[in-house]
């Protein structure tokens, strides 16, 4: 009974300490748990991989620093995939803070692909207005009018890769890496209004909400949280043989360890609760 009381009244800081240990130990002694690819991730990979000539992949980094650990590895991996396969990329953000993150991601990936040139292999579009629905609708009409200049101040009309890209008709897939409900705006305005292929990379919190849109094919693919990012990293490594640091995969052991810890605590907590109730 004494032990039961102690357990039921355990200081929450003990749980924090155990969580910390569960995160740190797998980093230092990796277990190497396997990551299986799920259909939503494979669908997105295939869609990006089969981008035809004359089209581009649009990546919108619609998040800020608070969700960086989940969404940043997605941005980096998709960019690597596109650069490795010589697929043209348009990078943008509907969040003010996302533009800075997009610039860091681009610089990170360009270190591995130094031959990629702005305006030829990729175009970096700046933040234009805070009304994200209007930006998406504007892109559906004419990207050149919505973004007269790129992030570096160069006229969009003068960029070679943008000469043939005017709207979503020349975008093979628009990928929204979103922390909030921004991916829903891409579905509503880009997919519903213009028939664009839309995919989402979302935080795990948002993943469950997005599954209905996969079922109706309004989303052609989805990366859900760190797990989704790890799956894409694994696919890129296996299929394209790119050997680089896999930030999401490295974290998956720790993720699994904490999940096991949570399951154990939930079971123990329930047992303790029912035993205590019976004793009353």
């Amino acid at each position, binding site marked *: 009974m004494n032990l039961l009381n102690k357990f039921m009244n355990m200081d929450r800081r003990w749980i924090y300490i155990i969580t910390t240990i569960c995160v740190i130990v797998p980093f230092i002694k990796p277990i190497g748990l396997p990551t299986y690819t799920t259909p939503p991730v494979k669908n997105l990979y295939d869609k990006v991989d089969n981008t035809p000539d004359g089209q581009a992949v649009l990546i919108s980094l619609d998040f800020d620093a608070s969700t960086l650990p989940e969404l940043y590895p997605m941005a980096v991996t998709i960019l690597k995939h596109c650069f490795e396969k010589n697929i043209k990329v348009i990078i943008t953000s509907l969040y003010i803070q996302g533009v800075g993150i997009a610039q860091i991601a681009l610089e990170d990936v360009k270190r591995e692909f130094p031959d990629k040139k702005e305006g030829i292999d990729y175009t970096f579009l700046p933040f234009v207005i805070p009304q994200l629905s209007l930006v998406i609708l504007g892109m559906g009409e004419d990207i050149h009018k919505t973004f007269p200049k790129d992030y570096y101040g160069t006229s969009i009309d003068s960029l070679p890769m943008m000469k043939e890209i005017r709207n979503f008709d020349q975008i093979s897939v628009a990928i929204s890496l979103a922390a909030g409900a921004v991916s829903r705006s891409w579905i509503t305005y880009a997919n519903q209004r213009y028939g664009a292929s839309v995919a989402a990379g979302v935080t795990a919190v948002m993943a469950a909400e997005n599954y209905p849109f996969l079922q109706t094919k309004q989303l052609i693919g989805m990366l859900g949280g760190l797990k989704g990012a790890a799956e894409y990293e694994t696919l890129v490594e296996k299929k394209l043989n790119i050997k680089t640091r896999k930030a999401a995969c490295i*974290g998956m052991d720790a993720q699994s360890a904490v999940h096991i810890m949570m399951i154990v605590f939930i079971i123990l907590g329930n047992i303790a609760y029912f035993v205590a109730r019976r004793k009353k």
Partner: protein
Amino acid sequence: MSHDPWIWIAVFFTFCIFSFLYKDNPFYRFAEHLLIGVALGYQLPIFWKNVVGPKVILPLQNHEYWLIIPLCLGFLWLARLIPKYAWLSRWPMAFSLGTGAGIAIPLSLQASVFRQMQGTMLTKAMLSPSITPVIHIIGNIVMFVGVITTLIYFYFSVKHVGAVGKVARVGIWYIMLAFGATFGYTVMARVSLLIGRFQFLLHDWLGVID
């Protein structure tokens, strides 16, 4: 260990935020306030450079004077600061609500209601083992039952007794399963953020992992 001073600053603020796990303290509050200040400070110049400059000042310099109308409408938002003229702020609010609703409602209805209803409807092909794998057929039936029973649970014009009560009970089970899935994903998301910070500490700062 890193020699980059920016990494050390980031480490200091990481520990400031982590210190809240022990208890509330001035270091945590300092980091929290600084975050809000920095975020606002970061946004203002970008907003000025990318929005106000090219969308307002430059066109006005090019004699596009019609922009004065939306500009004045925008300034009316500030009327809320003067109680006597606060009612003037209803005009831009009405304009924003009107245009926003006009753009959003038809498309949102189509994307989130009609397409979802369409996706829930069972067709002959969705139930035919020669066209659809058996596991997907089961999934389609489970989804169909889930949507109907959940909708019945939220239909409050009839008492939830008898047959309706039993169907609504099934709806509750579906809702509980949805809560469970959402909670599981939420745990995963929060742990991912913690993992991200520890990756930063162990990789970028201490350099003890690859």
